[in-house]
């Protein structure tokens, strides 16, 4: 029975927290620009407004792509432990992670590519070259940050010799945070976090000035609302994964969300002040520094494991 509640609860938490984080990000950026900024719940108002608009459609794939993207991210959230430990029982089932028994970190990695792929297919069908250029940039940026990201995940997996996320979190709660045992991977992961979130330094996918907000050029009304929700869930997802891999997940949901908030604030500080890089420089950067650090950490882990 608790599994059903959790199955409903974790996507809901992801949506609510994601939307609030989006609102918070606009507030933080405003305060850094020394202006007031909108209320925290502004994204909720935006979503309601978009839902009440009647926009256009360029074909069935144009509408379905976005639905797949949101569905993909919401399903991925179910595989990520959101705090709680085997020992204590905040939800009478230990870790808040409904589908942990049917898929580990490998499944999460593959599910995370469902979202961008769905959006890419939808944007491709929008008969607008701005969208196609945006999607080709998104895929290239993904290729750029994926090399270090995979190195990081493989280092963590081979360090804990398991592919199940709940076990990694449980190990970290006993033997200390991941950031301490695989420090270089944590640094590399933090360096590519803005790229995975698509925020300012790597904002080139939905660059409003250059390519008319990239893949979202033709989206309006309810599809745009779904894209906003997808953005929120994807934001929650990436930061939750970062916390689970390196900051030892939360003893309960509250500490988990607190850790997420701290990581999010750090990323937003960077986001508020840095300009946008070109796609070539983004690729060069991602394949040089984060990949180097992660490779070094991987080598150390492999040597220590086999040594």
């Amino acid at each position, binding site marked *: 029975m608790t599994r059903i509640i959790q199955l409903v609860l974790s996507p809901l938490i992801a949506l609510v927290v994601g939307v609030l984080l989006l609102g918070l990000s606009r507030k933080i950026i405003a305060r850094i620009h020394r202006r007031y900024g909108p209320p925290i719940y502004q994204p909720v108002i935006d979503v309601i407004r978009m839902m009440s608009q009647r926009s256009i459609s360029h074909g069935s794939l144009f509408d379905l792509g976005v639905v797949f993207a949101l569905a993909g991210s*919401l399903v991925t959230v179910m595989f990520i432990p959101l705090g709680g430990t085997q020992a204590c029982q905040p939800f009478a089932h230990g870790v808040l992670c409904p589908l942990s028994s*049917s898929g580990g970190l490998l499944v999460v990695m*593959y599910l995370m590519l469902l979202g961008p792929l769905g959006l890419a297919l939808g944007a491709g069908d929008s*008969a*607008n*070259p701005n969208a196609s250029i945006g999607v080709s940039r998104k895929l290239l940026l993904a*290729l750029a940050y994926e090399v270090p990201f995979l190195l990081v995940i*493989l280092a963590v997996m081979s360090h804990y010799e398991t592919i199940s996320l709940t076990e990694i979190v449980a190990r970290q709660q006993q033997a200390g945070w991941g950031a301490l045992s695989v420090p270089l991977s944590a640094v590399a992961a933090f360096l590519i976090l803005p790229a995975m979130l698509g925020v300012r330094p790597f904002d080139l996918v939905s660059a409003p000035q250059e390519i008319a907000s990239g893949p979202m050029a033709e989206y309006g009304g309810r599809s745009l609302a779904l894209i906003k929700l997808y953005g929120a869930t994807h934001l929650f997802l990436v930061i939750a994964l970062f916390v689970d891999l390196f900051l030892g997940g939360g003893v309960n949901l509250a500490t988990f969300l607190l850790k997420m908030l701290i990581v999010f604030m750090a990323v937003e500080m960077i986001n508020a002040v840095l300009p946008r890089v070109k*796609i070539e420089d983004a*690729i060069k950067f991602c394949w040089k520094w984060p990949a180097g650090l992660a490779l070094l950490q991987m080598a150390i882990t492999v040597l220590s494991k086999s040594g």
Partner: protein
Amino acid sequence: MSAQGILITAFAGAGLSYALGLTSARLREVFAIVVSVLLVCLIAITHGQGAEHVYYPDFLGLDLVLRMDALAWFFAITVSMVGCLSVIFSLHYVRGKEKENFYYFALLLVNAAMLGIVLSGDLLSFFIFWEIMSWAAFLLISYKRGRALDAGLKYVIMSILGSCAMLLALLYLYANYNTLVISDLAQQIRSAAGGFPLWVMLAFALGFGIKCALIPLHTWLPDAHSEAPSPFSAVLSGILIKMGIYGFILVMYGVVGLKLLLEVGAPWLHFHTVLCWLGAITILIPTFIALLQDDAKRLLAWSSIGQIGYIMLAIGVATSLGLAGALFHTLNHAVFKALLFLAVGAVEYKTGGVRDLNRLGGLIRRMPVTFACALIGGLGLIGVPLTSGFVSKWLIYKTLITEGHPFLALAALVGTWGAILYVYKLLHNMFLGQLPEKYANLEAAPFSMQLPLMICGFIIVLFGILPGIPLSVIGGIVGTLGFEPVTATLTGFGPQIGPLNTLNLCAAFAGVLLVIVAFRGIAARPKPVSQDDSYAAGAAAPAGKYHHTVRFYDPLERMTGGYLRDWVDQFYLSAAGKAKGVFNGVRRIYTGDVRTYVMYIVALLTFLIFAHTAGWL
């Protein structure tokens, strides 16, 4: 219905189809389909009957044996299924072209030869069918004359090289164990004291490596695929490449056996680790070359080489999960590549031979079914959850990580992202974006072309949601090849192998999808609008020029384009050039008029007499 019966129907079918073709085209087409479907049913019936019998007592002192066991059945069903689909597809594709009889005969012959390879119980009949397959494939690759001829030539030269290497290995085995029947050959090798000589394994590896396009031996594949007619290139990259894989598995695990295999090769560098690294390289380089291709079939050809890398990696790891992953990925890749090549063939057929990705676009509006199947095939190739590709890749990654090969796993995973990029480029440039003016009223592909696509799509999704169906068969095969069998539940794997349950995944996905569609239903339904009404900063969208395809991944092309030229191919061509110089020299000896030949004979005789008198001889 034993293996012999299957082979007879296959080869007879090929011959008869040519004969019937002379009388009436309609009859030949019907007959070809009937034979293919019959073969699939025959093989399906013989599931589980392990039979081995001699079908030709003493051929040059050896008896030729046919064997039907789990591994043979698995490959046979794949071969016959993809062969049948490509025959159905080529009904419309070849109609009206010249040399139709020849085309059907050669296609059925290739399928029959491949069945022969898979069902052969001894290495000699294996070699015979191997040669028939190579030659029949050459006939079909150079079907369109012109450039296809040199592609076929390159293919034939490399195949001959591989066959000679394999023949050498066969002779060695016969000399040492004076039998070529696989079952007792295996017993003798395992009981023999010394290990298995490395060079024999290398000879086999060269023969099979050329056929399954491992990285140094892959250069024939891109040309052969892009020049062959589409239904055959589906067969070519779907199953003909898998014969190399079958050869590797047969030799490495069937003949030599696991225990012995681990010692083959120098103590510090084992044969199978080299195979792993070769597989990893074969994943990376072709995938990134595939990104930069502009011709649809050449892109798919490079992607085939990339995916073969996955299978070789899984075979090289030499663990039960790895082998299960390899076998499952073989089946998956056969289905994906058949589907994608047939989809490209359908588009090529409808648009009159256009394969250039920069001149197509927006075909989703005119050919939705072809796009849907190509999408499923593409997602399967990437390995998106809910498709069968995901389960096989999950197996490969799981074994790589638990066996402690993180760098190989990295190569495989980066290969996946490369696959995403080139699959998206293929789908986007052909189906999405703006529809060019001249394809405005292009009608959909005929049903006989859409049927194979739909069947393949259904298989991908079915095995994606319920992977237990193929995995139960594969688990048994792995058991017979000297590993502990892989036990898989209908919907994934139990906790001891690793948490995976695709049915929960599918149910969760479906549930969330329904909730989202319901939530979306609150808002007003959007207004469908034509492709010209897209945002162009207030101006009218320029017709025909508003589609972004040329140099789709331009930044990456600028960064890595220089390094990704096909060095190996250039090396071979330069070597061939130099060799031509040498052979020209030799050719000049034969001047063609009799007097010089008489002079050669006289000179030889004098030399012999002189050598005899001086006591050398």
